[in-house]
């Protein structure tokens, strides 16, 4: 059976009955990014109103590949186990040139991580699970469908939004507005902001088909496929016997013609042979790799596709947007609760522009590799592909997408200078790495599940002095004994010591988004307090 799109009814808000809302945070757009943001804020006790002009989840699967870091974030939000259970876990990619396999990779990194490198799961499931999760917070998340933001007025201390609904307009005030309204962002338009970067002329046919087949859960990518006259093709499995097929069509292709099922069918038959299949979704795209110059404009903040857009090779769009949320939610929450100075928001710009630039650079390069513009570029590509079969180095130059990895925030404003006493491990700005632990009850669990949304001092060997009110988790080699009131976990397989370069007596200060803010070989409560002040911007001037 095909995915059944549930329709969410319009519910008349109090605003239409003369009882206006003032929202601490107004989120525009209930795609994966807006939904994740509402949940993350709710987990921090911050209320939001979430508007969406539609009344259902994504039509067409769009994003299918979700990365390990995204799953770790979704785990913090309480939705990852459902996604992993439903999703197709994969780790092998095969690259073909014409009819020959020239290269394959195995993403399975090292053991000892809760989440796989990637799962494939249709965007409509991701949104459905996030909506279900949002419903767990009826007091904190006010989700309004069929509610379109049509205008805004900005002030220094907030925003007034004009919302259009089936039962009329209303005005809604908010301290902050986060635009998660996608690539055609209304908010971006209202602010008169444009994207900078590259657009590609090449057209790609993207379809999902439903088919019973025993293709393995692998990413198959062809350059100059034997079954298709275009430059490239991709086949990737999703849950429910759905397969994603991308076919490069060239810049001249007419999207109207190419979109017609009678033209799509033969293209698919050429790949899957005489297996019966049903077409689930067809779309023809051109791609852009662009972003806003800045993501923060006073009390209006952009996240996800409204802020940046990439081609899908590398799966960096949705994954990048979820990382925006991870970075933004705790900062907004800290500001809303007056735990941080408002200047903290500027570091969202700084940190996520770095992330967006990395995603844009990688996606643009992959797209360029697929669409050589000059004769010389074609020759380089042809020879790299031809050599890839026999010369190992050439395989690494062939670019069919560089898959989404978390961005390093090293040397940016919030992170303290690294302590040179560490020989390895995770430098400030790194996302935390997962590892198995054994808790004081003897249960096996995961380190990242212990780093849940607040500052945490991770100490090694024995507890260290920490500033008043700051949580601490101590990693020990032997059984975790918490009788003295200190929380300890056992380094189940010795991987925490390995991954964090954990010297006995040392400590890491972890940010609420599971990134390293600072680390000390010889920590003191004062050094830790200084590093926290650096993040929250509350130190005395």
């Amino acid at each position: 059976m095909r995915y059944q799109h549930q329709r969410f009814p319009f519910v008349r808000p109090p605003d239409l009955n003369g009882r206006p809302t003032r929202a601490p945070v107004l989120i525009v757009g209930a795609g994966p990014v807006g939904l994740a943001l509402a949940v993350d804020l709710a987990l921090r006790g911050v209320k939001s109103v979430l508007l969406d002009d539609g009344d259902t989840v994504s039509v067409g699967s769009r994003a299918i590949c979700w990365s390990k870091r995204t799953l770790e974030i979704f785990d913090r939000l309480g939705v990852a186990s459902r996604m992993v259970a439903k999703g197709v876990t994969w780790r092998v990619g095969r690259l073909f040139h014409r009819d020959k396999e020239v290269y394959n990779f195995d993403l399975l990194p090292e053991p000892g991580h809760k989440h796989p490198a990637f799962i494939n799961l249709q965007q409509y499931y991701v949104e459905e699970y996030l909506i279900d999760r949002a419903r767990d917070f009826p007091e904190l998340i006010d989700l309004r469908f069929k509610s379109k933001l049509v205008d805004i007025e900005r002030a220094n201390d907030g925003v007034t939004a004009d919302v259009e609904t089936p039962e009329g307009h209303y005005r809604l005030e908010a301290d902050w507005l986060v635009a998660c309204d996608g690539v055609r962002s209304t908010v971006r338009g209202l602010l008169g902001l444009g994207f900078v970067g590259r657009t590609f002329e090449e057209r790609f046919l993207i379809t999902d088909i439903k088919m019973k087949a025993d293709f393995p859960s692998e990413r198959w990518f062809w350059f100059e496929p034997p079954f298709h006259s275009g430059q490239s093709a991709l086949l990737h499995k999703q849950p429910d016997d759905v397969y994603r097929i991308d076919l490069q069509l060239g810049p001249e292709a007419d999207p109207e013609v190419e979109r017609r099922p009678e033209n799509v069918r033969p293209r698919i038959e050429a790949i899957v042979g005489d297996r019966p299949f049903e077409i689930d979704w067809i779309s023809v795209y051109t791609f852009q790799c662009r972003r806003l110059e800045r993501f923060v404009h006073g009390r209006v903040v952009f996240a996800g596709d409204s802020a940046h857009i990439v081609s899908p090779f590398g799966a960096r769009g949705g994954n990048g947007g979820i990382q925006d949320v991870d970075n933004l939610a705790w900062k907004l929450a800290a500001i809303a609760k007056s735990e941080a100075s408002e200047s903290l928001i500027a570091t969202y710009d700084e940190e996520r522009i770095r992330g967006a630039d990395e995603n844009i650079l990688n996606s643009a390069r992959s797209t360029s590799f697929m669409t050589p513009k000059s004769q010389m570029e074609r020759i380089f590509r042809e020879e790299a592909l031809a050599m890839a079969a026999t010369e190992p180095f050439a395989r690494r130059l062939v670019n069919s997408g560089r898959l989404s990895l978390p961005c390093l925030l090293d040397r940016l404003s919030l992170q303290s200078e690294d302590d040179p006493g560490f020989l390895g491990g995770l430098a400030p700005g790194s996302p935390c790495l997962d590892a198995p632990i054994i808790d004081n009850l003897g249960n096996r669990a995961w380190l990242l599940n212990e780093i849940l949304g607040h500052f945490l001092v991770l100490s090694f060997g024995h507890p260290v002095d920490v500033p008043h009110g700051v949580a601490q988790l101590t990693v020990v080699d032997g059984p975790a004994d918490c009788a003295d009131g200190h929380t300890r976990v056992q380094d189940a397989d010795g991987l925490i010591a390995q991954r964090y370069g954990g010297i006995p007596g040392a400590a890491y200060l972890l940010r609420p988004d599971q990134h390293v803010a600072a680390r000390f070989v010889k920590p003191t409560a004062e050094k830790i307090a200084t590093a926290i002040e650096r993040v929250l911007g509350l130190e005395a001037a």
Partner: protein
Amino acid sequence: MSEAKLDTSFRLGTRGDDVYAALIAAHDGLSADESARLNARLVLMLANHLGDAAIVIEAIERARAGIGKL
């Protein structure tokens, strides 16, 4: 018989795509003739930097074999 010394494992670390992009960018806007000249200069420069004639000659032979018509 000389021992094979040409290393064809990938040696560019995290910078493979940077090098490829820089190469392509360098050719941007050049005619076919100019592009061939650019490649010639590059090859000569890199061969000299390598400083090991045996390796350079082995690379020449390997690359040439791939083009065929021997």
